[in-house]
């Protein structure tokens, strides 16, 4: 009984760790894409919230909010936010240049999602560090299928 419970707990923690691991390794395509965005710099997971519905019924227009945890002062602010959808035909969706005058490291837009995938946002901060967040999106009507 206790062995079962232990195995269950271990599998639970494995599940909790899975997204972070999946983002960090295991996917050479994603790694190459992220390396392109960070120009080879280290990328850490955290500080970036990707807020989007888990189940989006229309892939042509999926609402998306990216919020970066930053005081947005002259000394410490977000320089750039890049949105990636690796299974789209063109994975770099958009890139936004911000600064201390933005007051808030946040962007709201609508994007096309070609497949069930993780939407990734990478934030470049003023100290040169890169942070990443992601959200898994399931779309029932995929974009980019016509023709």
């Amino acid at each position: 009984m206790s062995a079962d419970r232990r195995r269950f707990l271990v599998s639970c923690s494995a599940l909790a760790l899975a997204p972070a691991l999946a983002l960090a390794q295991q996917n050479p395509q994603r790694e190459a894409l992220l390396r392109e965005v960070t120009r080879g710099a280290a990328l850490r997971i955290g500080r970036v919230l990707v807020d989007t519905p888990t189940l989006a019924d229309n892939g042509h227009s999926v609402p998306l909010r990216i919020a970066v945890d930053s005081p947005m002062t002259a000394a410490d602010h977000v320089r750039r936010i890049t949105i990636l959808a690796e299974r789209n035909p063109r994975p770099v969706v958009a890139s936004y240049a911000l600064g201390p005058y933005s007051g808030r490291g946040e962007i709201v837009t609508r994007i096309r999602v070609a497949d069930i995938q993780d939407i990734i946002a990478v934030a470049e901060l003023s100290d040169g560090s890169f942070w990443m967040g992601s959200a898994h999106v399931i779309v029932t009507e995929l974009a980019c299928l016509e023709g």
Partner: protein
Amino acid sequence: MSMLARVQVPAQARRGDVFPIRIAIQHSMETGYRPDNFGRRIPKNVINTLTCRYNGVEVFRAEMGSGVSANPQLQFYLRAENSGELVFDWVDDSGQRGSERAPITVTA
């Protein structure tokens, strides 16, 4: 085809306050993957760059690709500094430009 756009900027803000800006532009944001009625591929044509200048200083820039939805909507934030004008400029792959401006009054 002229590009209709709507920009929402608060008429007034207190100095130091952070206010939202919303912009919506009428544009098909052609991906380049869609065929027309004769099966010919419609070339990619998206609004690739949008900038916002606040009293002449660029304070925001969006570089967009075909992954952005048709009739792009965008919301971002700015900190109120001085009264003046916000100018939005954008251009698509075909070279067509659009522009919109909004005044803002900043109170102490």
